[in-house]
């Protein structure tokens, strides 16, 4: 391509070549269309959020990370999967540099699962790809996320927040087993599948 002359204008661009009224009219139309588009997106998000109860993890619960091991909800004996009276399961997991404890959680398929997580040290992330599970694990707080696994099998559970030089090694798993198999497993096999 040849270098062009500086702005070789064929017709001069005069003041008011588009009238002020025309500018205001077209801009108003455009603004209304754009606001309508944004309002529609917002409405879809509100409606789907409400009807499907899709909320990000927002339980403001504090916990002292320095006393996790001394008992309470995140004592070692209490980690892993627990069956609730209503048949749902709760999985308690601690994130620490550079592993999840336990590093494999076993849960039944087609059953409501509640993950309760906290950190023993720095900020971690908790992601189960191909599910809606994705939360930060912030020391000092308990994160709670819920899902129902509809396919049995192995799911990866990587730490998805930078937590230090060993971050890339922080991969755990969820083992989702058929609903009828789960109660037949020994207690230790139910709470954890970590080897």
């Amino acid at each position, binding site marked *: 391509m040849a270098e062009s002359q500086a702005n070789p204008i064929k017709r001069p661009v005069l003041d008011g070549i588009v009238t002020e009224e025309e500018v205001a009219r077209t801009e108003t139309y455009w603004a209304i269309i754009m606001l309508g588009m944004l309002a529609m997106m917002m409405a879809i998000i509100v409606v789907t959020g409400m009807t499907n109860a899709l909320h990000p993890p927002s339980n403001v619960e504090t916990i002292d990370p320095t006393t996790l091991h001394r008992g309470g909800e995140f004592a070692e004996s209490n980690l892993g999967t627990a069956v609730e009276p209503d048949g749902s399961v709760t999985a308690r997991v601690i994130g620490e540099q550079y592993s999840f404890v336990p590093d494999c959680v076993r849960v039944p398929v087609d059953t409501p699962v509640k993950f309760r997580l906290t950190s023993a040290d720095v*900020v971690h992330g908790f*992601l189960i790809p191909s599910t809606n599970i994705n939360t930060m694990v912030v020391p000092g707080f308990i994160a709670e996320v819920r899902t129902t696994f509809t396919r049995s099998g192995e799911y990866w559970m990587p730490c998805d927040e930078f937590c230090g030089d060993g971050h890339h090694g922080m991969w755990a798993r969820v083992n989702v087993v058929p609903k009828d198999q789960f109660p037949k497993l020994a207690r230790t096999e139910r709470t954890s599948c970590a080897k």
Partner: protein
Amino acid sequence: MQNSSRLSLSHYWVAFAVFLPAVLLGAWQMLMRSPLPAPLDDPNAYYTSVTLHGTAMAYVITTFFIMGFGYAVTATSLERPIIGVTAAWIGFVICLVGTLMAVVTILAGRASVLYTFYPPLLASVWYYLGTLLLVGGSMIWVVLMIINMMVWKRDNPGRPVPLAMFAIAATAMLWAWAASGVLLELVGLLLPRAFGWSTQIDAGLARTLFSVTLHAIVYFWLMPAYIAFYALAPEAAGGRLYSDTMGRLTFIMFLVFSIPVGMHHLFADPEYGSGFKFLQSFLTFFVALPTLLTVFSICASFEIAGRARGGRGLFGWIGALPWDEPMVLAVALSLVMLGLGGFGGLINMSYAMNSMIHNTSWVTAHFHLIFGGAVVIMYFAIAYEMWPRITGRPLRSKALARWQLWSWFWGMLITTIPWHITGLMGQPRRIAVFDYGEPFIARMGPLVIVSAVGGLILLISAVLLIVILLRSQFGERILGEPLRYALAVNPPARVPASLNGFALWNVIVLVLMLVAYGYPIGQFFILKSSVPAYEVTRQFGGAGGQ
């Protein structure tokens, strides 16, 4: 450009001198995390590199470039010397010293906490001090932008502030509001802990304060691109700006709506209730509005230029535009990337949909497309527009500049489109090495290789940029034309006070900030959720509680 020439050029050169090695780090990181072999195959070096790449791109390059741009715009749009040149040079030196402190500390492996800090990880005190000097030093620039506009208004009562000056003043105020979060985090939490004056850090509070900065800082980076859209591009295309008022409203909307929305980066955090998350998600929608309005205004301005150049018919004006002008080409490429990245952003800010992609490669792809693509390509175009004006030497050459812009555009698309896909597949971000032997990760391998190729194209493009700027700097001196800003089709004779200043808008920002952040920040003084800090050391697994 009178007294501002050397000032602007010095700022620009710091920015671009840091830019090239920062792109090199990025390209290396792409190789590291791909199935391909990478030189210096060390995960620790990867996290050091990510910290340096982020710090350089997010704090150093942007701040220096925008400060230089601000000084140039002030002198040329007000058509008079800058007030406070000495203070500006002092600010330059402070920022430079801060940059050196931060960079040396990162390279020593004492600050691998990423540019977002992530307390309770604790870096060396020198890293925090360096960042404080860099961000704090830029506040001198903020004050100078505001003073220059105010003094001009005093000397020119009743006249509308030129749009470019109005916009750069909005940029300065936006940055002051945005930086308040990171400055408070540094001064109130990180430095006291790093010095040993406090024993603990409240990770939740630190994250909340940083979120005040984290979204608005992107709009700080974006503003020069929009100033070029409104004030430089229509002129480069040989036309007129469609509407001066829309420009003013756009910059005001950016100031008002880009700050009380940062919590949409923290949707997945457990330390706030869903109410505030929803409120900030709602407010975030408004920040899309100025961009959607700008697209119309710029296309209309280009249509005026295209028709003036003889373009006919519904689309004939598009072909009639001077596409050989780097500025015109860059605007088109920028808008394409802004469109793609923007729609990705609409998903990120959507309250519940964010769960699908939070902290996956999707997010990395989103902000590389918006900032690394749409914004940075306009930085290149601004440099190509200003270099001849500052140095008095012609750009060598426009053809090379077009190659550079196209290669950056394709490099960025080839890099980010695979990232979007691997993000949806569940690839977490900020991971040094993946085990491609695992079937779950192996299927991402080919996409990661494609994106690494994009990284190499970006590196070549960055080298080309430096070659063009150096060739232009040392070319034969000719008398350059002064920088001219686009005139509006209907130049405003007077504008209302609300569109000629920021007093009202700053009050609105304050109110919105109190509503959106008052309780979320205040709650930590009730929750008392401080935790011990973890110093970053160089031995793998050797970090321990203090």
